[in-house]
């Protein structure tokens, strides 16, 4: 009996060790609008977690809280063993370099070429890198997304799908341990959406990243998800694998799969 308890505790501690994001009772309001009411979720190492939810249910707010872009009102927000709500300045910036964030719009810097966009985070993190080293890292990141020929183009010369891929390359160039994707396939055609979803999966396998993917795109969710949670009215209403949730009897969850 004692041995069994010991094994259970050991398993529990291993599981906790592998939790890279731990959110408990997270709350966020904007004025009288309670966007996140009581969100609890854990992201495990190497896992792709898809967050589904209708527009305005606070999905983007949730991942912005994780990197301190939005300050949560209450709750526990542990990312890579750091309490985000207590971090400031240099410590917060250090954590941010370990967490990649792909914005919905791509957020490429319009006034810079693709090369300058990719060099930007590198120059800020490690000023001692030579130009040759920077070039090598830039080319490696672009080859990962299959766009090495776009290195000297301006963002305005790129298509929507290319912009997303370049943004992904810029995010990956710092080799983050966690990736946060804010609607990575929004505004893209079906074929390009599928390509981006496959790329997300390939990146997870290559770099062993843990990812939270916010999406409405069920095909993307199906391709990338190891686990899915459903947000509704600021709360998690369902959690499981894609197939488990597909067979759920809860109306709000079923609606996504129909």
């Amino acid at each position, binding site marked *: 009996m004692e041995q069994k308890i010991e094994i259970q505790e050991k398993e529990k501690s291993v599981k906790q060790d592998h939790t890279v994001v731990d959110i408990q009772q997270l709350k966020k309001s904007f004025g009288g609008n309670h966007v996140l009411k009581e969100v609890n979720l854990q992201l495990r190492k190497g896992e792709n977690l898809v967050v589904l939810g209708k527009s305005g249910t606070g999905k983007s707010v949730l991942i912005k809280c994780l990197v301190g872009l939005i300050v949560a009102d209450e709750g526990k927000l542990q990312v890579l063993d750091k309490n985000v709500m207590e971090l400031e300045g240099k410590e917060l*910036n250090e954590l941010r370099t370990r967490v990649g964030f792909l914005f919905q719009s791509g957020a490429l810097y319009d006034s810079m070429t693709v090369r300058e966009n990719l060099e*930007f985070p590198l120059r800020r993190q490690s000023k001692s890198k030579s130009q040759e080293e920077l070039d090598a890292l830039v080319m490696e990141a672009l080859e990962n997304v299959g766009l090495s020929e776009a290195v000297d183009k301006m963002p305005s010369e790129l298509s929507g799908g290319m912009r997303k891929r370049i943004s992904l390359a810029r995010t990956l160039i710092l080799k983050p341990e966690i990736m946060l994707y804010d609607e990575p396939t929004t505004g893209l055609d079906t074929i390009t959406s599928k390509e981006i979803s496959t790329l997300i999966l390939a990146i997870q396998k290559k770099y062993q990243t843990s990812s939270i993917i916010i999406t409405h795109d069920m095909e993307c969710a199906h391709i990338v998800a190891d686990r899915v949670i459903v947000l509704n009215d600021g709360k998690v209403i369902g959690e499981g694998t894609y197939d488990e949730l597909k067979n759920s009897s809860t109306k709000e969850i079923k609606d996504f799969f129909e």
Partner: protein
Amino acid sequence: MSKEQMVTEESSDRQSFQNLKNFFLEVSGIALFVGRFFKEVFFPPYELNEFTKQSYIIGYRSLSLVGITGFIMGLVLTIQAKPTMAEFGAESWIPGMVAVSLIREIGPVITALICAGKIGSGIGAELGSMKVTEQIDAMEVSGTNPFKYLVITRVLAATFMIPILAILSETIGLFGSYIGVNITGQVSLRFFFTQVFESLDFIDVYPAIIKTFFFGFIIGIVGCYKGYNSNKGTEGVGAAANSAVVMASLLVFIIDMIAVQITSMMM
């Protein structure tokens, strides 16, 4: 008073109260923004490359506009003043009068207003569009302080470039005046500039130069504040650019009024 009139009056009172509230919120917002600027400007990292790039954009790319305007100011001022001065037999005072007017007042203020239009709106629109397309957030999550990279560099560049542009504009304006004098008369360049320098004193030049640093600072900070805090999508970008020009122009006049008072006391 009818019920309808009472409702209209009440709604107008509420609107006035809201406008007053917005005004104070704006003032406190700018004060906090300026406070943050001084809190961060002295500490590393110093974004020297971006500062140089912004100085090039703000300074070099405004040269032709400021130069042409300065030339026209000097020329027009001379042509307009000439008949009146001739009436009093004081044509020889034209170089001195134009120099004092240009250097003390017209040069700095007109240059600042042109820069408020060109540079203030440019900064407001650029930062506004970066804000609504999440580029500022992207900078922040990559571990860069966007305030240092975007705001401090632009404000410093505007603060140091606008005085240079004003001096250039005034110098070109004096050449414009020289041409204006020579349209109907014949005055040598040496005589013209001897007259100019004889009529100028230190008190005409230094306060005028010092106030252009304040003009530059205010144009930069207002443009950055409006852009950095813009929202409501593309509509917000337009509004940021527009209100940056309006507010910066108004503040230029207010600073000018204060500077004139201080200079008068010194004299």
